[in-house]
């Protein structure tokens, strides 16, 4: 089975090409084609996962480019991490393809939509099977393109266009760091392949400072892609894209690519304590920062977006604290429950036709399936006991506690409280309380079925990483490698504290939002803290002043230089030549007398010159 792994990304690529070429003609069968082209990779991925479970790491590469002594290869490598990512990506992608059939059925550009989805899925699957950093970088940029196209899918909307550009530019800033990191690694180790780089790191072939520098540069790439501070502002804006796209790209897969990048380069990070600390600190600050913004936002999807930023921060915190298993585990569970939450939010939006949670309420009785599924996702995200998020978050707490940075540990606990608070604020505001006087219909089975699958996973996915069952996930991840740190075990009281915090968040949310009487609700508080949070700490504004205005200012200076100095010089030169030409042409007026005068004057001048220079004949 594992020998067919190379075919996994080819089906979405085929889907992309077919949809692109025949997008006008195949509109009616576009969803079916898209679903088939992702179902096959899903089946293959599961087969590959099983094969990897029984076998060993599989590598297959062909030479792509030969530069001097270096051969750059393209290929497939199936490590435990890759096999797991393959299943996550192809599963969520397949479910989103199914979901989109109903959600996007009124779209004029259905074929285009499915082709973009195919391109993205192809790129993401290629990314997680990369055999070396060059291939990784190529697919890394391709997923960026897919994300750009899909955010700007509703290109008639100004906000969507702006968001697409913002996402592209901000992730590009990170990508430059990644590219420099890759080049430095090649310079120092002479190879692009993961194995050779780690070999060189382990054997001391690369200096300690250089390890730190390259690790930090690669982490800059991860910051851009995963929406970490300070490059996080594009992710909430990316919610301008269609909701299934948000579920696939901006919750489950692409934004997790940054975490995946750190995970796959983990031996490099482990070799530098500075890099590890940076990852942990950035992750921790991002987690609490985004969670606090999520508390006051009114747009359903934006709350989820800030939640995604916050959870990605958690994963970075875990990785930076040496919790490799915990970070990857949370990556997996988060992919399921956050995709579920986005799809459920899409279902709500599809029924209610608004994203503003102030205009919702009492939907529990009207959307009989969406409501419970959303609550399952919310419970899982809040770390409610026995749901998937509980186990992965617990693992993160244990890792951070074990690492001994107690400030970060405290931040993680506080963030967990905020997480359950803002999630249940959503739940209470959207599904409970007084209802609007409208009739909403529950969505069709095509929308609900993918959510049910994700809902089941959001509950049970935690058990594969739970120590109750011998932590099969952790053993699987450590298969075939000895360089990864072992899983940390926290103190006995830790799970109870986590449960308490989760319940406290839900309780506070109930007290604050669960008991309102009127439909037009919620305090429109304008205290300084609320305003600070509502305006997202004014990060966009600060960037607007520093970078946008700053760039505009530099641009103005150069416009002046261009207009008055350079153009002035050129203009002077041109007008001088023109003036000379005018003088010359004044002689050529067709009058013999003028010609004669010129000729005589010229002769006189020449004679004068002759006399002055030689003194004439007479001496």
């Amino acid at each position: 089975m594992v020998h067919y792994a190379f075919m996994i990304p080819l089906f979405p690529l085929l889907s992309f090409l077919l949809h692109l070429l025949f997008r006008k003609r195949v509109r009616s069968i576009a969803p079916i084609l898209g679903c088939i082209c992702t179902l096959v990779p899903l089946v293959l991925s599961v087969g590959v996962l099983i094969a990897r479970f029984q076998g060993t790491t599989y590598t297959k590469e062909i030479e792509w480019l030969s530069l001097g002594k270096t051969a750059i290869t393209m290929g497939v490598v199936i490590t435990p991490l890759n096999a797991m990512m393959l299943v996550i990506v192809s599963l969520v992608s397949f479910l989103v393809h199914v979901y989109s059939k109903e959600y996007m059925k009124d779209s004029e550009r259905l074929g285009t939509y499915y082709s973009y989805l195919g391109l993205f899925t192809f790129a993401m699957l290629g990314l997680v099977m990369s055999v070396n950093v060059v291939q990784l970088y190529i697919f890394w940029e391709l997923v960026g393109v897919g994300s750009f196209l899909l955010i700007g899918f509703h290109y008639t909307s100004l906000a969507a266009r702006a968001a697409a550009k913002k996402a592209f530019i901000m992730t590009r800033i990170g990508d430059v760091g990644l590219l420099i990191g890759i080049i430095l690694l090649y310079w120092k180790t002479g190879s692009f392949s993961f194995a050779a780089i780690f070999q060189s790191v382990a054997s001391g072939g690369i200096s300690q400072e250089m390890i730190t520098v390259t690790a930090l540069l690669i982490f800059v790439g991860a910051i851009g892609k995963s929406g970490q501070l300070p490059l996080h502002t594009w992710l909430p804006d990316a919610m301008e894209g269609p909701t299934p796209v948000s579920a696939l790209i901006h919750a489950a897969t692409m934004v997790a690519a940054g975490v995946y990048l750190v995970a796959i380069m983990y031996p490099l990070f482990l070799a530098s304590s500075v890099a590890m600390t940076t990852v942990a600190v950035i992750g921790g600050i991002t987690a609490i920062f985004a969670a606090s913004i999520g508390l006051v936002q009114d747009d359903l999807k934006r709350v989820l977006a800030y939640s995604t930023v916050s959870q990605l921060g958690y994963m970075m915190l875990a990785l930076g604290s040496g919790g490799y298993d915990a970070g990857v585990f949370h990556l997996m569970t988060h992919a399921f429950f956050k995709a579920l939450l986005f799809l459920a939010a899409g279902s709500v939006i599809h029924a209610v036709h608004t994203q503003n949670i102030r205009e919702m309420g009492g939907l529990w009785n009207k959307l009989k399936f969406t409501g419970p599924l959303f609550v399952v996702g919310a419970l899982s995200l809040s770390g409610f006991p026995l749901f998937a998020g509980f186990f992965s978050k617990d693992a993160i707490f244990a890792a951070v506690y074990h690492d001994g940075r107690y400030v970060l540990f405290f931040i993680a606990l506080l963030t967990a409280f905020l997480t359950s608070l803002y999630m249940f604020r959503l739940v209470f505001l959207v599904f409970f309380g007084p209802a609007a006087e409208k009739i909403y219909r529950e969505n069709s089975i095509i929308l609900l079925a993918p959510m049910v699958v994700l809902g089941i996973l959001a509950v049970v996915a935690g058990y594969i990483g739970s120590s109750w069952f011998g932590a099969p996930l952790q053993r699987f991840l450590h298969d075939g490698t000895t360089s990864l740190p072992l899983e940390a075990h926290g103190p006995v009281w830790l799970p109870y504290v986590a449960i308490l915090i989760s319940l406290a968040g839900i309780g506070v949310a109930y007290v604050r939002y669960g008991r309102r009487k009127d439909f037009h609700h919620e305090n429109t508080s304008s205290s300084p803290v609320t305003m600070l949070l509502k305006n997202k700490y004014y990060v966009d504004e600060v960037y607007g002043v520093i970078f946008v205005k700053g760039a505009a200012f530099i641009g103005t200076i150069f416009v002046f230089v261009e207009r008055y100095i350079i153009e002035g010089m050129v203009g002077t030169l041109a007008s001088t030549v023109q003036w000379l030409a005018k003088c010359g042409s004044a002689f050529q007026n067709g009058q013999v007398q003028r010609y004669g005068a010129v000729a005589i004057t010229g002769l006189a001048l020449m004679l004068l010159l002759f006399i002055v220079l030689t003194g004439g004949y007479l001496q």
Partner: protein
Amino acid sequence: MNNVPLSGYLLLALVLFCIGLFGALTKRNAVIVLISIELMLNAVNINLVAFAKYGENPGLTGQIFALFTMTVAAAEAAVGLAILMALYRKRKSVHVDEMNHLKQ
């Protein structure tokens, strides 16, 4: 009469030539231009005669040349005046700055 040096004749010829040149280049009336050209020719004649008498190799050649020049100048003046008459009949003008047909 013989105590006038060669340079005296040459200076006279130079002044005469310059007057003629000035007239030929600046006057608008074609008749004056023709007269000025005659002046320049005569300046040349003075030179020829002066060198024939006081030059390195005195002889008659220069004086005969001067006679030839006068003959040719007379013929030239006749042709020039004839052209001028024809032009005047056609254009009702003797101004040289209006005579720019060849340019067009």
